[in-house]
């Protein structure tokens, strides 16, 4: 079993270009801490262009919204699809459960 990099957490990178209005998500990278994450983000995602603002955020710190319930691919809160109520064939006689 090879040595892992799991102790180098995942960071999400946001970049605002020189004349940009807002930071845009550009991808992620692994770094041991925020200083290295920022330096690496500069190397990887901006190739050291000037005048660019970079934010790095631990991926674990990000809370993302789920698609709207009406979205065709709204994921049931459980991973297991079969636990979602619409997947059982409930005989009409039984009524709503």
């Amino acid at each position, binding site marked *: 079993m090879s040595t892992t990099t799991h102790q180098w957490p995942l960071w999400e990178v946001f970049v605002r270009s020189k004349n940009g209005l807002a930071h845009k998500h550009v991808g992620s990278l692994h770094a041991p801490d925020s200083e*290295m994450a920022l*330096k*690496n983000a500069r*190397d990887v995602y901006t190739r050291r262009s000037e005048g660019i603002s970079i934010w790095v955020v631990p991926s674990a710190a990000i809370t993302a919204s789920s698609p709207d319930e009406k979205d065709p691919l709204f994921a049931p809160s459980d991973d297991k699809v079969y636990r979602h109520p619409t997947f059982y064939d409930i005989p009409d006689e039984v009524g709503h459960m």
Partner: protein
Amino acid sequence: MKWDTCDPKTAYVLHLADDALILGQRLSAWCGHGPILEQDIALTNVALDLIGLARQYYGYAAELIGDGCTENDLAFFRDSRAFTNHLLCEQPNGHWGDTLARQFFFDTFHFFQLEALQQSSDERLRHIAAKVIKETSYHAQFSAEWIIRMGDGTEESRSKITQSLRHFAPFALELFIPAQVDAAAHDLGFGPDVSVLESDWKEKIQSILTIATLSPLEWGFPKKGGKSGMHSEHHGYILAEMQSLARAYPDATW
């Protein structure tokens, strides 16, 4: 070697170029072999910067020589005894700790050297120094960050980086011992007196070592000669690899 490179200014610019090229060449060997992808990219950026800087210096030297001389003539068709890079730059990469220790010593010196070159009597050197000092400060920060992480990381990393720093310390001393090439440059006003840079450099080095929880360095007996063309045995092999293809087809352009 048919080009006249003895003029003190030309010789000095070549010395600056040789440092950048030999060190850049060493670093470029890490590409594809770094400890993790992100760091591979980061170190390659340093290599790119140094080789880019070498091109600026060789380009200037070629202009000073004239007669159709090119940057490639100077990089690929000079022999080992004509190169005046510091011994430090030609030392082998070793492991990550060795490479970063070597960088730490050189990058920190490089920053102070460029600061001084911004006061050069030569306009082109002032211009080049002003252009590259910012990226050089990134290099120095990057190296320092790694010394800190290896010094204050695990017992294994502390032991390894301590050995690396101890190994390169004597080579670092050459940076501050003037030789013919940089002493002449200083006398003529276009380069610094390198001995004057030593105390600031040592102070910076020491401050990082303290943060890294490493003991102060014992400097040892200086290793010198690179600036006079008296290289270590590594140098011949670096040039053999670097120059072989260009020399195999001397009339070709690429």
